[in-house]
C-alpha cells in the first residue's frame, strides 16, 4: 500500500512540470528544428524547477527559429539567457527581494546581459519603489547600457531621476533621448551626463538634455 501511495505522490508532484514541458514543446513545434525544441524544453524545465520564468526562454528560441539562426547558436543563446535569469534572480534575492516576479527577473537578466553587475541590479531594484516598477527600471537601465552608457553612469542616472521625483514615463524616455544625443554627435556617456544634470531641475523636457529656458552658457572647458 505504501509504495503505491509514494508513486501516486510522485506522479502528482511531477504533473505540473510535465504539463509545462508539454506546453513548451507544443509551442516550439514546427517553429524550431526538433533538436532545438528538445534542448530548449529541457532547459526550460530546469529553469521552471528553480522558480525562473520560462516564457523568455521560449521566446528566444522562437526568435532564433524565425531568424533562421543555426540550431547550436539558438541553444547557446537560450542557455545563456537561462544563466542570466538565474543570476538576476540571485542578485535580486541578495538585495533583499525574497520573491522577485518574472518581469523583474527578466529585466535583471537583460541588465546583466547589457553589462550591469549583480550589485547594481539589486541596488536599482531596491531604489525602484512606487510609483516606479523595478522591472521597467531594470529594462530601461539595460537599454541605456546597450546604447553604450557606462553601467555605473546608467545606475547613477536612473537613481538621480527617481530621487528627483521624475515620472515613470520620464524614465522610459531616457534611452530615446540618449539616442538623440548620439545622433547629434555626442558619445552615449556625454548624452547621459546631460540628462543627469537635467534630472536635478524641473520641469523635465522630453527630447532635450536641458530643461526649457536653460542654456549651457557657463560650461567649464577644463571639465571632461
Amino acid at each position, binding site marked *: 500500500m505504501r509504495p503505491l501511495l509514494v508513486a501516486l505522490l510522485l506522479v502528482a508532484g511531477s504533473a505540473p512540470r510535465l504539463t509545462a514541458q508539454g506546453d513548451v514543446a507544443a509551442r516550439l513545434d514546427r517553429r524550431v528544428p526538433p533538436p532545438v525544441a528538445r534542448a530548449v524544453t529541457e532547459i526550460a524545465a530546469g529553469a521552471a524547477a528553480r522558480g525562473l520564468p520560462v516564457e523568455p526562454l521560449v521566446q528566444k528560441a522562437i*526568435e532564433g527559429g524565425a531568424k533562421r539562426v543555426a540550431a547550436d547558436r539558438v541553444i547557446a543563446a537560450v542557455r545563456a*539567457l537561462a544563466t542570466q535569469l538565474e543570476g538576476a534572480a540571485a542578485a535580486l534575492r541578495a538585495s533583499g527581494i525574497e520573491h522577485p516576479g518574472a518581469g523583474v527577473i527578466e529585466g535583471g537578466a537583460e541588465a546583466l546581459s547589457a553589462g550591469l553587475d549583480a550589485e547594481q541590479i539589486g541596488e536599482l531594484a531596491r531604489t525602484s519603489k512606487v510609483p516606479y516598477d523595478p522591472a*521597467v527600471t531594470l529594462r530601461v537601465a539595460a537599454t541605456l547600457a546597450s546604447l553604450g552608457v557606462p553601467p555605473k553612469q546608467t545606475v547613477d542616472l536612473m537613481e538621480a531621476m527617481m530621487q528627483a521625483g521624475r515620472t515613470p514615463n520620464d524614465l*522610459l524616455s531616457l534611452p*530615446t533621448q540618449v539616442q538623440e544625443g548620439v545622433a547629434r554627435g555626442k558619445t552615449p556617456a556625454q548624452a547621459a551626463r546631460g540628462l543627469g544634470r537635467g534630472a536635478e531641475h524641473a520641469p523635465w523636457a522630453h527630447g532635450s538634455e536641458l530643461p526649457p529656458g536653460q542654456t549651457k552658457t557657463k560650461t567649464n572647458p577644463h571639465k571632461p
Partner: protein
Amino acid sequence: MSDVFHPLVKGLLDGEATLAELPPELRAEGEEALQLLGLVDRAPVTLPAALESRVMAEVRRHAASPLRRAWRRLVEPQEIELRLRIRPWAAWGGALAAAAGLALLLARVREPPAVRAVQTASRDSVYVRFVLFAPGARRVSVAGTFNEWNADAAPLVHAGRGGVWTVTLALPVGQHQYAFIVDGERWVADPAAPAVDDGFGKRNSVIAVTAQGARTL
C-alpha cells in the same frame, strides 16, 4: 305674464315678505306669482321600487371595478395642483448650485482629450504605429515578442511613393522587442528606436507599452 318677476315679488315667493308688504303697484304681480306657485304640485315624487332597482342595477353595471379605477388613475391624465413654499435663500442657493453644476459640465465637455501618440485599443492593449523608411523594399513586416516573432503576422503597407512603410498594431501592455523584416529575409532594427543585443549577433528594438501610451526604449 311677465317673464321675470320683480325682486320684491321674488322675495314674496321665497317667504321673505307678505303680499301686504309689497308696494301697491306690485301687488297684482305678487298675486299672479302666488297663483302660479299654487298651481305647482308640491306632493313628493315617489318612484316605483322596480324603477329604482333597475336604475341602481344600471349604475352598478357602469361602475368601474377597483382595479379599473386604479388603472385609470395611472394612465389617464390628471390635473395636479402643486403649491410650493420656497424661502428666498433656498431659491437662490438652488439656482447657484444648478449654475455651478452646469459650469462644471460644460468645462468637462470642453476639456480637450489628452494628446497621445497612440490610442487605447482596450484596457490592456494600446495601438502603436510602426513606420520604416525602406525605399527599395518589395515587402516589409514587423515581428516581435508581441506576435511570437511571426514574420507573416504583421505586414506593413506601402504609404505613398516615398518608400515609407507603415502598420498600426494593438500591442499588449508591457515591454516588447521587435524588428522589421525586409523582403522576407533581412531582419533590421527600427532605426528610430533604441536597440539591444538579440543574442544572435544582431539587434532588436525595444518598446515599452503602458496604459498611457507606448514609448520606444
